[in-house]
């Protein structure tokens, strides 16, 4: 019924959908969305990794700084966080670098430094860092302690132990939830519309407010979100497969390999069938 309605109900307004689906303004907005996701992920996870390492360190100071950060930014709703960075200029019109209560080495207008785009990236990244630090921490904790001990016993330098021995093994645990976080962030970029940044959702709103084709344009956004989430999921599959090296006796086949294997089976069966019939007919002819 629903599927039938999708095609026949004129309210869905498919012509408008197709008109806007690949419109330059939508594609440009899409690029902004991807840009926000990329930087949010990169900075968020980099900061998250540092926070996780701090939380797992022996220093009580680093531990509490990390804990406080996570506590704070998990408590603040993303939209509030974003608006804070967006409105920073009202709070501190100029920012300067210098010695506290001493001379200043230089100062800039906050508005110049924090364009809405920068503010959005910072907001998304600091928000994301609080969550990804927990994801990273769970992954790091899941690595057998004997691994770190063996690396230490061999005299492998600290940072190298982390990067070469612990992190790749932690990735197995990090990836499924980590990918969740990335996809979540990707969709959370739509919240950035409050800062009047031309990302996908903002652009869609602008257009349907103008032409009234609400459903068609919401579908444009939905389908793009679907397409990109699908792509992210496919990337996730291959990255997970990469980090499964050594963990499974045999890596799971890629979908392509699976497809080829199926074809090969069908072809093999067809060949043996042919041979059988050929042999049977040969026998039938023989006497």
């Amino acid at each position, binding site marked *: 019924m629903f599927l039938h309605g999708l095609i026949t109900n004129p309210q869905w307004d498919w012509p408008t959908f197709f008109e806007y689906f690949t419109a330059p303004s939508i594609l440009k907005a899409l690029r902004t969305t991807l840009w926000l996701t990329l930087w949010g992920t990169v900075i968020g996870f980099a900061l998250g990794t540092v926070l996780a390492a701090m939380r797992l360190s022996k220093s009580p100071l680093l531990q509490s700084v990390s804990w406080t950060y996570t506590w704070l930014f998990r408590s603040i709703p993303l939209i509030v966080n974003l608006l804070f960075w967006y409105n920073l200029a009202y709070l501190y019109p100029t920012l300067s670098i210098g010695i506290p209560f001493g001379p200043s080495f230089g100062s800039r207008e906050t508005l110049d430094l924090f364009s809405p785009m920068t503010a959005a990236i910072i907001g998304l990244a600091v928000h994301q860092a609080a969550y990804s630090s927990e994801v990273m921490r769970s992954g790091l904790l899941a690595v*057998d302690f*004997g*691994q770190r*001990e*063996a*690396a*230490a*016993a*061999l*005299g*492998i*330098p*600290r940072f*190298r132990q982390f990067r*070469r*021995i612990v992190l*790749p*093994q932690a990735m197995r645990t990090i990836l499924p939830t980590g990918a969740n976080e990335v996809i979540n962030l990707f969709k959370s970029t739509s919240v950035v519309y409050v800062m009047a940044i031309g990302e996908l959702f903002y652009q869609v709103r602008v257009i349907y407010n103008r032409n009234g084709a609400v459903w068609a344009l919401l579908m444009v956004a939905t389908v793009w979100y679907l397409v990109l989430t699908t792509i992210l999921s496919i990337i996730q599959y291959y990255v997970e497969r990469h*980090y499964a*090296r*050594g*963990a*499974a*006796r045999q890596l799971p086949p890629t979908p392509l390999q699976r497809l080829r294997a199926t074809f090969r089976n069908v072809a093999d069966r067809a060949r043996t069938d042919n041979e059988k019939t050929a042999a049977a007919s040969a026998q039938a002819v023989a006497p």
Partner: protein
Amino acid sequence: MTATVDRARDDTRRGPLDVVDHPMVVVHDVRKSYGQHEVLHGIDLTIDHGEVAVVLGASGSGKSTLLRCINQLEKVNSGYIAIDGDIIGFRRSGNTLHELRERDVLRQRVHVGMVFQNFNLFPHLTALENVAEAPRSALGRSRREAEELARDFLGRVGLADRADDYPRRLSGGQQQRVAIARALAMEPKVMLFDEPTSALDPELVNEVLDVMKALAEAGTTMIVVTHETGFAREVADTVVFMDDGLIVESGTVEQIFDAPTQARTASFLAKVL
């Protein structure tokens, strides 16, 4: 932290600090506690160059803790350990000993090879990468040098043809041999074995022991914690019997196995021989 070790200073004339002709491993009055619970109550042990010492004892007697102290995986609470004349965990300037930072501890560990009960191979690296990793990152060898070295050492434990396999594809015995090659590739001054065959199926024990025997014959200094009394009889220069955090007695194979002087040694051996 700065610690002045009076005893070490008194010993300088004949102790491990200045003497050139020193033993390979000196453990002097080492005590170790976990919280309130003391697990080593003052251990003294001297191992010479090329000596093979087998440490026997019931579980919980402190054997593994002793090995872990020698490798600085645990810090001793008092006493000291010297490897080839250098007190580990400390740097000496004048008559004062300064506690080393972790970076320098890592550098010292290079001289001590450790083989664990559970192998602790890196599962995401191939056998070759497992062996080549530390020569690259701790000794600064180039990738090609390290891999050549790794191939050489894998050959010595009879696994040249399994270089590109991941640990999970190897049997337990093969994994432990890779672990031995990994430790050997650092060319340590002393090799520590912490129950290297305890996690293995019985039929795989001998392939590991054979590798260890070959090492012993080649003159490697080894401290082996094991329950394999047959191995001890065959290769040990010294047998050390530990109980309840103390060395009860130590001596040659004949002294310990055939004529133990302590009742505790005799009753332990009666159970395992």
